Each structure stands twice: as structure tokens, then as C-alpha cells.
């Protein structure tokens, strides 16, 4: 029954039109999501390649793989590519673009052409960044601190700055599209308190994208102007203040980490109720916690500057505010856990990733509290402790959530099931590889190994070797899904409309959906996550 022939007959957004022009000039949010999927995956592997080189260099205490200057470029490019070209766009531009209209019962986003423009801006930025990397790269660290970036670095700072500026514009337009869509295009009956929490998470993310990105944009403009025209805005020898750069930079870049994590939290909030067959516990709290994270996230930026020279009083204020921002995140963790209590749990691949997320995000988040304490921060700032902290959140958190979401919605996106056994295997490999890579780094940091150093004292070697071993395992874990997702497009089991028995409007249309999403506009008269009324799926069980 489940043959490729049947799929080929079903008309969907994938086969409604053929040809490269129908893809490159599409305004269908689902096709744009796939365009983004290809591009961000490409950049993920570029960023991963730099990570691989870093970990290879750090196998030995001496600098013997690359020169010091080259090493500076490696960690800079790894950071810039991963943050601006993978983490920030990934979930919103792939899963958000695909699912937001479907989840609210709309035919497309509010501004389909701006959506396409957003992708093209991302591509232009990406090409500029690639060109920059291929013709010498940047060595300032992804943070571009002045006056090194404006006056001393001999690398392509202007080009990298412009590339990030353009990618920021892409991000702003995505956020703008989502906010207008969510406000204006919900189907009849889809009230705010019936929205999937994935939507609330993307709404909060979009607010951050809209309000934060312009500040880093203008800051990069000022850096480019200073470098090109020898202005003195951030240069102390010309009357400028390097800390002003840091204030303006971190005003965006701290909320940016919430751009990276909130969508992932939204994914977990969709997966957990489905594989527990229970309503989410505390819907209103989870929704408000997303907004809370977005707002509070703007109040804490100078915790990246505790030892940079800000006043002690400012440091105290920012330290206190940083403790506060942990509260809404904790609320989410409590609510996921409470949802699972007395639930009927299925350990399908998406759920494995959700579990991984919850545990690893917890560790990353708690170590963030360590860093908010001024006394501890003085000791571990600019060490591997910080590196481990943010990788736990961004990789252990955001990337695992992303992979969980890709597996959860793959049947909807492609019309095919991925092989469940391989899915579980990859999830376990990723989890083990991740912990082996990054847990040793907490210890290294606490013992005093500085970050961004190309060589280190020999007593740190064992932990570094463990970390590199973990990285290779992690790489395998990431490659596996790429392989079997591609495999599934041709040979995977044909997916029904709702293989997981999940709640949400996206599951009420075919897999894959038709171009205009729904045969007729849905009218919603049921609450979100009404799992007591949705029968569990029979065919997709553990061991699939």
C-alpha cells in the first residue's frame, strides 16, 4: 500500500510545480522553509568543519597543526558561522516558516515575497561570508571587540561585518513576518489561548529579532566606518570607549541567545505532550514564560562585561537581573516535567531528543547561574567553563531541540517516515558524543584553561583528548540523520496525515500539505493539546 507510486500521484506543495525557477522564485512558505533547510545545513557543516580543526589542534598542548593567527581565525569563523548562519536562522527559518501558517490555519505568511527576500538576503550574506573566509578570514573572535577589530586586526573585518549586517536584515524580516502573521491571520476560533506553544515561542523570538538586531546592525556599521575612515568612536587613543562597543554589541548578542533557544523550547513543548499523551501542564505559564524570557533577556547584557571595566555598581545590577532571567526558563522545565508525571510515555526519536534537551539545557542553564555570580565569574570568565556553558545550551539545547523537531515534523514536511531505529541510534550517539565533548570542558575551565588559546599547559591534555574524541562521535551522530532523511525521501514509509496522533492544525492536513495548506479554512472550536480526545496512533510504536 505504501508505495512510491501512490505518493507521486498525491499533489502537494512538493510536486505542484517543477523546475528550478519554481523553487528559486517561490513564495510558498513551505518551499522557502526547504530552501532554508538546505542553506543552513550547508553552513552547519562549514561551522562544524572549523570546529573539527579546532579540536584537532587541541589534541596536543603545543600548537602544531596551525599557526596561532590561523587558530584565531578558526574559532572566529566557527563562532560567526554557527551563530549567525546556523543557530539564529535555523528553527525559525526552517520549522517556523513551514509550520507557523499551518499551525494557525492560514494559507501562507503575511508577506510571502518578503519571506523570499529574507532567504535571498541570507544567501547574499552567506556568499559574502564565504568569500571573506576563502580570502583570508577574520581573527577578532565572533565578538569583534574594539579596538582590535577597528584598528589592529589585519583581516577582513569589514567584509565579515557587512555579511553579518545583511544576515541580520534577513533575521529582522523573518521576525516581522511572524509577528504580523500571528496577529492578523489566525483562523476563526484560533484565539491566543488556543495557539500551540510553538507559536508563542516564535512570537517571543520574533520580538527579540525585531528589537535587538537593529542595535548590533548599527554597531557593525559604526565599526565598519571606524575601520574604513579612521573615526575614533571606539578607539581609546582617539577618545573613544571600547566598552561602548561592548555595551552596544551585547545589547543584541545576549538576547540573541534567546533567539537561539526559545524556538527550541517551543519544539520541546510540542513533543512532550504528544509522546506523553497529556495536555501540557500550565499552558498560560509556559506562554507567559516565553514572553518573560524575551523581555528579561534584554536586561542582562553586561554580564558579559563583568571583568571588562564596567563599574561595580552596574555589575551588581546586571548580576541580579541575570539571576532573574533564569526564572522563566526554570518554569518551562518544571512544566515539562509536570506534564510527564503520570503520563504514558513513548520513547520515540523526537522524545529522546526532548529528554536530551531538558537534561542538557538544565545543566547549561544552571552553569549560567554560576556565571552570574560575580565572584565565580571573575575566576572562570574567558575560560573553557564559559565555552562549556554556552555549548550545553546551544548544542545540548538548541541543536537537540532542532533535531527533535526535524524528526517530529519530517513526515509532515516530506510525506515520508524516517527509519525509527536509526533515528533512536543517532539520538543516542549525539547525546553521548555531546557529553564527552563538552563535560570535560567544564572541568578544564574551572582548572583554569583559557578559551581561544591555541596551546595549553600539558596537564590539560587528557581532558582535551576526551573532548576531541567526543567531537568525532558527535559528528557521526549529526551525519546519520542527513543520510537517512535523504534515504527516506525515496524509500521511507509513506506518512499518514497524523503519524504521531499529535494535536495541532498542521496534523489535520495531508502529509505533505497542499500548496494552500488546507482544503478549506479550518474553524477551531477545541482547546490546544486536547490529548484526552485524540487517540494514540497504532502503527508508530517503539521499535518502528
Amino acid at each position, binding site marked *: 500500500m505504501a508505495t512510491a507510486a501512490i505518493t507521486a500521484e498525491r499533489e502537494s506543495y512538493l510536486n505542484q510545480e517543477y523546475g528550478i525557477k519554481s523553487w528559486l522564485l517561490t513564495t510558498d512558505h513551505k518551499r522557502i522553509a526547504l530552501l532554508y533547510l538546505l542553506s543552513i545545513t550547508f553552513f552547519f557543516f562549514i561551522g562544524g568543519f572549523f570546529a573539527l580543526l579546532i579540536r584537532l589542534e587541541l589534541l596536543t598542548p603545543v600548537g602544531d597543526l596551525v599557526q596561532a593567527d590561523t587558530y584565531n581565525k578558526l574559532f572566529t569563523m566557527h563562532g560567526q558561522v554557527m551563530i549567525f548562519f546556523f543557530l539564529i536562522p535555523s528553527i525559525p527559518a526552517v520549522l517556523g516558516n513551514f509550520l507557523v501558517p499551518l499551525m494557525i490555519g492560514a494559507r*501562507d505568511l503575511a*508577506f510571502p515575497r518578503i519571506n523570499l527576500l529574507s532567504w535571498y538576503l541570507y544567501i547574499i550574506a552567506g556568499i559574502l561570508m564565504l568569500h571573506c573566509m576563502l580570502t583570508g578570514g577574520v581573527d577578532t573572535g565572533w565578538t569583534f571587540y574594539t579596538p582590535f577589530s577597528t584598528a589592529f586586526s589585519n583581516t577582513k573585518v569589514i567584509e565579515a561585518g557587512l555579511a553579518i549586517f545583511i544576515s541580520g536584515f534577513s533575521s529582522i524580516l523573518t521576525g516581522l513576518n511572524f509577528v504580523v502573521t500571528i496577529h492578523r491571520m489566525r483562523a476563526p476560533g484560533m484565539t491566543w489561548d488556543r495557539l500551540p506553544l510553538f507559536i508563542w515561542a516564535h512570537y517571543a523570538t520574533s520580538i527579540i529579532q525585531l528589537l535587538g*538586531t*537593529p542595535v548590533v546592525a548599527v554597531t557593525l556599521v559604526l565599526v565598519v566606518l571606524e575601520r574604513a*575612515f579612521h573615526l575614533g568612536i571606539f578607539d581609546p587613543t*582617539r577618545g573613544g570607549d571600547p566598552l561602548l562597543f561592548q555595551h*552596544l554589541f551585547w545589547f543584541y548578542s545576549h538576547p540573541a541567545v534567546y533567539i537561539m533557544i526559545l524556538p527550541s523550547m517551543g519544539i520541546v513543548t510540542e513533543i512532550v505532550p504528544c509522546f506523553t499523551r497529556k495536555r501540557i501542564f500550565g499552558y498560560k505559564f509556559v506562554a507567559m514564560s516565553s514572553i518573560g524570557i524575551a523581555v528579561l533577556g534584554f536586561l542582562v547584557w553586561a554580564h558579559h562585561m563583568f571583568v571588562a571595566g564596567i563599574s561595580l555598581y552596574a555589575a551588581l545590577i546586571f548580576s541580579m537581573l541575570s539571576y532573574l532571567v533564569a526564572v522563566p526558563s526554570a518554569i518551562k522545565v518544571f512544566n515539562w516535567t509536570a506534564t510527564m508525571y503520570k503520563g504514558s510515555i513513548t520513547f520515540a526519536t523526537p522524545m529522546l531528543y526532548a529528554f536530551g534537551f531538558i537534561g542538557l539545557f538544565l545543566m547549561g542553564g544552571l552553569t549560567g547561574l554560576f556565571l552570574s555570580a560575580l565572584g565565580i565569574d571573575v575566576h572562570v570568565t574567558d575560560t573553557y567553563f564559559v565555552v562549556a556553558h554556552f555549548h550545553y545550551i546551544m548544542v545540548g539545547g538548541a541543536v537537540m531541540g532542532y533535531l527533535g523537531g526535524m524528526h517530529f515534523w519530517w513526515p509532515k514536511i516530506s510525506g515520508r517516515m524516517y527509519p525509527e531505529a536509526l533515528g533512536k541510534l543517532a539520538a543516542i550517539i549525539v547525546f553521548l558524543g555531546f557529553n564527552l565533548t563538552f563535560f570535560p570542558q567544564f572541568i578544564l575551565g574551572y582548572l583554569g584553561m583559557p578559551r581561544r588559546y591555541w596551546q595549553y599547559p600539558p596537564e590539560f591534555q587528557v581532558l582535551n583528548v576526551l573532548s576531541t574524541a567526543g567531537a568525532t562521535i558527535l559528528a557521526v551522530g549529526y551525519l546519520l540523520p542527513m543520510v537517512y532523511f535523504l534515504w527516506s525521501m525515496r524509500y521511507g514509509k509513506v506518512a499518514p496525515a497524523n503519524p504521531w496522533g499529535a494535536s495541532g492544525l498542521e496534523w489535520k492536513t495531508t502529509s505533505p500539505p497542499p500548496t494552500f495548506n488546507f482544503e478549506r479554512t479550518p474553524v477551531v472550536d477545541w482547546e490546544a493539546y486536547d490529548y484526552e480526545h485524540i487517540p494514540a496512533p497504532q502503527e508508530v510504536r517503539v521499535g518502528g
Partner: protein
Amino acid sequence: MADSPMAVEQHNPALQHHFADMEQQRQASSLGMWLFLATEIMFFGGMFCAYLIYRYWYYPEFAAGSNSLDITLGTVNTAVLICSSLTVVLAVHAAQLGKRQAQVIYLALTLVLGLAFLGVKGIEWTSKFKEHHIPGPSFHFEGAVPGHPDEPVDQRHAQIFFSLYFAMTGMHALHMVIGVGVFSYLLYYAWKGRYTPDYHTPLENSGLYWHFVDIIWIYLFPLLYLIDRKK
């Protein structure tokens, strides 16, 4: 039935088909423009932040630099922009009432005023160039701190003032240029009769953008031109 408002609306050529009706489309575009303006507030806001910090640190040099700007030209330019906001409003008003010719006249006037603003800006910048007030290797500031003729001005601090002056007025001028481009496009389509009482959303939303750029200048004027002008 065929002539009912709903039926007519389904056939409005400007309706994009992912929207249910023209009203939803209009509300979506309007919200979109307001959100974009919110991003612009933050974009200029970053430079206002830099201005605030450095004015706090280098007040004497900021005052000296400000005094070297031409207050007459600054005031005239402020008035020019205010007049252009009026012409924009009157153009939208004309569209609401279905007056095509009035639309065209007011849009053309807006363009003229916008270009006049840019022209005056060009004159101001040229005089700054001649006085060596453009930041860079040939920067040199001759003025004195207002009220303290013996006090020498720190060249580096004065250069910061002018860096911000050019960055802020330059970014503003860039937004004016974009506005002139947008309004040229609007002028063309207004002349072709595209904007009617039923559909003039591009005019409205572009008007919002223009007013915003005006508001930025309303703040730039006192902050840049009027620091410590008392004799």
C-alpha cells in the same frame, strides 16, 4: 449579489490571495510598517546611545562642535521636513477622497522638499569639509569651548563629536534618499491612478516611513545644533 461589496472586493486587483479580504491585507501591511519603524527606532537608538555617552563625557567639545554648525541652515532644514510631512499627509488625504491630481501635486511637492533637504545637507557638509571638520587624517578643529575662550579644545574629543555628527546625519540622509526613491515610485503610480479611496495602502505606509524620518530629524536638530548656544 454580484454587485455586493463582498463580491466587488473579491475582485479587487490589489487583493493578494493568501488574505481573506482587503481589510485583513490593509491591517497586515500597516502593522508590518509599524514593526519596521520599531526596528528603525532601535537602529537609530544605538547611535543616540553613543551620542549620549560621549556628550556626558566630552560636553565642552560637543558644545564647541555644535556651535560650529550653521544654525540657520539647520532650522531651515527642520522646517523643510515639517512642510514635507504636511504634503505627505495631504497626498494621503487626496487619495482618501479620490482626487488623483491633488495626490500627484502633493507627492511631487514632497519630492521637491525632500531633495531640498538633501541639497541643504550637501551644502552643510561641504562647508564642514572646507573647515577640516570631517573626521580623519586632515581633521582639525579651530573653535574654542563656548564661554571659555582660553580653554583649548581636545582634538580627539572634538573628532568624536563630528564622527557622530556625520554618522547620524549621514544615516538620516541615507533614509531620506530611500524615501525619495520610494516616493518617486509612488508618484508614478499615483499619476497612473492606482491609488483610490478603496486602496491607497502603499501611500499610507510610505507616509508613515516619511514621518518617522522627520521625527528622527526633530530630535537630531536640538541634539546636534543647539548645544550651549547661549551667547
